[in-house]
């Protein structure tokens, strides 16, 4: 079993948005970054994996088993850090501990207490009194204390300061040192992924644009720059996204289309952020 999660032709319609034949795999033992602009379908996909959404077409496999059944015990194997904590706002940390010990069959109270100390979470505070960063750490402490083999993180680092984000990345890297552990990390803050992700799934407008290793993703595209007077020399069909300044022009194209432009264009390797931005901009 090489894939922890496998999504096949996931389609979900809303009035203003739809997921269109989304298919990708989350390999076991690695960190997979799930990237895309806001509103691209990341959270809908994640909610489908967690069975929070169930009226969709397509198949989702967890450890090779179809999740579309009455038995949802597979979710216990997943640690979740989402934008919202799902914890009652008036709960104290003690209440959180009690609720988790009721909910998770393999809950380890001592481990939770240890993580609270490691993450320096003030146990006298209520959930609503915790900062955004502390809430994220609390969810991580919960995830690690019920022996989750998979971590699904939905925008966990948005709103966190760089120090906590760096700390967070270290925690994830330590987590995947165990080959049984897998991470699916959805974010639009792509610097986090460039540092730690092994694979990338890129979604935009409900469609998957890329799925593969980070290196392949970054090597797939190039950014080319030239003077504005040379802009017309590039084939429009090759341009994925472009940007025009007063005197210069830059575009993102597939690396394989490089021979289509003249030698004196400046060629640069894009960042994940730039790939997303150019994809979104299109060729205007």
């Amino acid at each position, binding site marked *: 079993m090489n894939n922890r999660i496998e999504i096949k032709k996931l389609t979900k319609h809303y009035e203003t948005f739809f997921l269109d034949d989304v298919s990708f795999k989350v390999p076991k033992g690695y960190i997979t970054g799930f990237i895309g602009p806001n509103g691209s379908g990341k959270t809908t996909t994640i909610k489908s994996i967690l069975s929070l959404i169930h009226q969709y077409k397509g198949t989702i496999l967890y450890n090779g088993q179809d999740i579309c059944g009455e038995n*949802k015990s597979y979710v216990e194997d997943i640690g979740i850090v989402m934008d919202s904590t799902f914890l*009652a706002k008036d709960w104290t940390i003690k209440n959180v501990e009690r609720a988790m010990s009721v*909910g998770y069959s393999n809950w380890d109270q001592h481990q939770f207490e240890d993580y609270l100390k490691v993450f320096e979470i003030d146990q006298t505070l209520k959930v609503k009194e915790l900062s955004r960063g502390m809430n994220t750490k609390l969810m991580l402490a919960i995830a690690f204390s019920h022996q989750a083999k998979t971590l699904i993180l939905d925008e966990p680092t948005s709103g966190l300061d760089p120090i906590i984000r760096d700390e967070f990345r270290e925690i994830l890297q330590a987590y995947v040192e165990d080959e049984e552990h897998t991470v699916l990390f959805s974010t639009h803050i792509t610097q986090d992924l460039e540092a730690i992700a092994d694979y990338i799934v890129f979604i935009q407008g409900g469609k998957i644009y890329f799925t593969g290793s980070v290196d392949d993703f970054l090597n797939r595209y190039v950014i080319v720059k030239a003077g504005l007077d040379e802009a017309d020399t590039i084939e429009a069909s090759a341009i994925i996204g472009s940007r025009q300044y007063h005197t210069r022009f830059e575009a993102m194209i597939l690396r394989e289309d490089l021979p289509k432009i003249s030698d004196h264009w400046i060629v640069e390797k894009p960042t994940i952020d730039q790939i997303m931005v150019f994809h979104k901009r299109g060729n205007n």
Partner: protein
Amino acid sequence: MKNIKKIIILDFLAIQSYLTFKNFAIYFVFAMLYGLISKTPITVLYTLSFAAVLYSSYPYFVGDESGIDALYKIFGIQAKSVVFGRYIFMYLMNLCAILMGIIMFLMINLALKQPVQLEGWISLSAGFLSIFLVSTGISLLQFPLFFKFGYAKGKILTIMPMMLVVILTAIVMGYFGDYLKKMNLEAIDPISIISFVGVVYLIVLVVSIRSSIFFYLKKEL
């Protein structure tokens, strides 16, 4: 059954912050004072049953506010177990309210020096049971709407089935009032009345649970 037990404990934890000594004291003092001043001790049961209806709806309120329904799904608890757990939790709340109400009822009776005779206990028991059926009946009307729309919207929409009951009662009384008076209801066998009420209550219970399961299975979080 294991998951239903989980839901009862989790729902209790969810509303625990509202089950404060201060809140209990307010209900206790208000119920006792009203019972003493009105010299009708049974009013304490109305007050406490009202509190039970209110408190058994709080898990939906916390669900709206914090998304604990999603948490239950993340625990791998099936929708049916959540529904059954909520109904059992509601019955437990009402049972506690009735038991506390009876204790307070006896305290007021003692204070008013109105000992209850044996014959009085039979009609009082019928009264306690009626209050229990009415208060749980209100929840039976509320719960499917809470499961479908959540607490805030469901609470507003709850008024509709209650209005429907009132309107239907008014229509029945308007058209059949004279006929009912002629029927001499007191002469009807109490067993028949109890059976009729029991059957109606059971139908409402089954419809309520089935609707709640139907709505909750469809609900996406």
